[in-house]
């Protein structure tokens, strides 16, 4: 029986399983041992169980091509990602710190004295020119200053194994439903894999989220506020997740047309008449929330909702205007925010970023753009990004010219060789690049949910982990403290 690892060739960057000398990192010891006893037929069988499970449960996402939505079942790789307890507690500390600082910044900017801007920590022009800077959010206080109740922070691991933040998602981070469903599928397909480990559970997300949302309800709602999840509808690609959230919290899943605002109070249309709503976990963007205040052509939102938010009769999660803090340019200032608001050094650094509007930084990189990643500040969704090592001379020359002409519109980052982890490729295991999106909840206090969504590229050498572009996912294990996690210093 050929070993599944027979053809394993280490990729560029940090390998999660094997150290440079080929020895197995302690936290993966038992998993590698278990997988070594399996052959490709076993894995095919398990893969079929999982695919069938996802299909039966209708766990799908929508891929758009040629303007047509195709429903695909969720792709999950069988080889789990393992994070040792000590490694996780460090990440937990860093994520809590980062989200706390970001919340402080949002509260300071929209409700407070704008101290960070006045003290020059973040340039004012940068904030006011952000397309997500929301004037309607001014003067609307949020309980506990929790503007971002649900955050998703994208992390990558560099060649030395150190984690860095690639992106903050403070508006509508998605993926948590897949974290929970991946675990459920793994537990069914591979029950004995869990025998040797104490893995932190993930099915408490609904309870945690509900407690968080209850804690930010407006005061008049009392002890049992009514919460709803607001979805754009069944045709949205994340509808599965929206239904999952409502179900796991035990609350209603509503669309804009189910809600009505009367006398600055939000109500749901029920069989028994109008029923008041205290907290809305909305999964639609700011611009679609209220056709009176924002986009008039939107039919997804609720007319008059902004008035109700202003009147303080309802809490909308996440709060309005959060996009200003997860802007690509503002990202570069988050380490400074941490120092400014918390008086601490950042636990998890940013990917090294050069600001082209800073003369010294610009001059230091213009000569070596072919080694770097060039990103336009104003664009999102990967548009306009130039990856130096893969770019043509013309592309690089154009990027050079753009930066010199309009330095304020560009940032430049070092290339990160994403870490990689053994994944099933045909009948054997091969390394595949991956990232990690942990979720952070903030109400009365900030809590980091154990693990997060590991996204993995499904092609050799590819750095693209988006599920819409052929990426997959992995169950992500955070080992509990009490086990001999062995991997404490493995990284």
């Amino acid at each position, binding site marked *: 029986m050929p070993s599944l690892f027979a053809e394993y060739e280490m990729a560029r960057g940090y390998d999660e399983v094997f150290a440079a000398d080929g020895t197995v990192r302690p936290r993966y010891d038992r998993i590698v041992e278990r997988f070594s006893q399996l052959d490709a037929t076993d894995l095919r069988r398990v893969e079929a169980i999982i695919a069938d499970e996802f299909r039966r*449960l209708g766990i799908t996402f929508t891929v758009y091509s040629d303007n047509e939505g195709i429903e695909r079942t969720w792709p999950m790789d069988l080889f789990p990602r393992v994070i040792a307890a000590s490694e996780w507690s460090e990440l937990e500390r860093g994520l809590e710190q980062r989200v706390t600082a970001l919340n402080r910044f949002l509260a300071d900017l929209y409700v407070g004295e704008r101290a960070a801007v006045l003290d020059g920590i973040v340039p004012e022009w940068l904030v006011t020119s952000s397309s997500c800077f929301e004037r309607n959010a001014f003067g609307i206080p949020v309980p506990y200053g929790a503007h971002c109740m649900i955050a998703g922070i994208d992390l990558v691991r560099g060649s030395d194994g150190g984690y860095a933040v690639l992106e903050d998602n403070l508006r509508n981070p998605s993926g948590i439903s897949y974290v929970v469903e991946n675990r459920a599928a793994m537990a069914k397909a591979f029950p004995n894999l869990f025998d040797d480990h104490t893995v932190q559970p993930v099915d408490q997300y609904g309870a945690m989220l509900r407690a968080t949302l209850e804690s930010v309800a407006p005061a008049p709602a009392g002890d049992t506020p009514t919460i709803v999840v607001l979805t754009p509808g069944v045709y949205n690609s994340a509808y599965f997740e929206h239904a999952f959230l409502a179900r796991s919290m035990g609350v209603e*899943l509503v*669309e804009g047309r189910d809600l009505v605002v009367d006398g600055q109070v939000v109500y749901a*249309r029920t069989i028994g008449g109008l029923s008041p709503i205290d907290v809305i976990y909305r999964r639609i963007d700011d611009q679609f929330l209220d056709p009176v205040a924002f986009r008039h052509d939107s039919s997804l939102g609720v007319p008059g909702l902004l008035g109700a938010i202003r009147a303080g009769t309802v809490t909308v999660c996440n709060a309005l205007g959060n996009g200003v803090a997860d802007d690509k340019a503002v990202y570069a200032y988050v380490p400074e925010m941490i120092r400014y608001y918390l008086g601490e050094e950042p636990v998890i650094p940013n990917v090294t970023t050069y600001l082209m509007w800073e003369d010294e930084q610009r001059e230091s990189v213009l000569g070596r753009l072919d080694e770097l990643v060039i990103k336009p500040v104003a664009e999102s969704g990967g548009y306009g990004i130039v990856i130096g090592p893969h770019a043509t001379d013309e592309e690089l020359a154009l990027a050079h010219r753009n930066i010199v002409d309009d330095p304020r519109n560009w940032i430049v980052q070092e290339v990160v060789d994403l870490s990689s982890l053994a994944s099933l490729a045909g009948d054997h295991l091969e390394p595949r690049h991956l990232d990690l999106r942990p979720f952070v909840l903030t109400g009365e206090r900030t809590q980091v949910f154990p693990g997060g969504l590991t996204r993995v590229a499904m092609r050799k050498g590819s750095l693209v982990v988006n599920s819409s572009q052929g990426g997959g996912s992995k169950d992500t294990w955070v080992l509990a403290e009490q086990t001999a996690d062995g991997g404490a210093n493995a990284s």
Partner: protein
Amino acid sequence: MILVRHAESLYWAGRYLERAECTSRWLDVASRTAMHLLPDEAATEWSELLRALDLKADFEASQHRAVRRDVATFLLSAPENPGSVRSSVEALRENLRVARDRVPVELWEETNHLHLEVSRLDVEATYDRGSHEIYSMIREGCQTISGVLGESMTRDEGHAFLVLGRTLERSVLTLGLLKVSFSNPRGVFDGERILRSSSALQAYRRLHGHRNDPVATAVFLLDAPDVPRSVFSCLRQAEARLAMLRTGTLSVSVPEQLAGRLRSRLEYGEIVSRLGDDPVAVLTEVDDEVRALAESVTTEVFRPLGEAIIHTQFVRPGRNR
């Protein structure tokens, strides 16, 4: 409390579940009957079946002929038939998806399973050798869903709307079947086929033996209190669900009044006593009242303020619905 939109989706899910199961069972029974008939008699049989399902006009507009395989293809999977089993199962799934957060995971799982099986179905290629497998698959799928619905769903408002939809659809279908049988151009009343289509043959035999008696059959299917597909049983269930949905501000609703009135007229013999004189007229009268009741659920419960909530997935078969 349940959102109006979710209530409406679950109500229609109940209707489509019933429709899918009935269509398949009727087709199965009719195929077996047709085996013993001459070709033109069989054609009459098929046309009766289509009439009972309110799909005759749709069938004639399609390219199919009134022969076994064509009718089966049309009723099971033809894309141009909005009342096919495949369309019904799709509509069932879409409606449950809308109210996904109110539906137990087992119910959703079984619905997905049936949907997968039905969408894979290639009737034209497999019908001749595998019609039995097709009918069993659909029957088992629908019955598993019903079972899970009964065993795992909380008896809340969502459940009440599902059951309400199912019982109203069932009454409409039973009445359609009876009406058509009395106006059969062959002049033959095939009580056994009707009773078998309503899963009531054994119960009837225990009471009446092998008598092929049109009026006794009609009375049985209208009035029998212990037969799940009798109109009386359906109305009693519908009435109980509507009573459960009463709210503080809403006293007895119009649909509940209509259901209660019709149920008591059946229960105390007013309707069945007139059945012998002009069965078609009496059956039509009951059918109209059940349809008015269903209509009032839409106007009084789902649209009390006349708001137009647009549900494109609620395409109903037939012209009179």
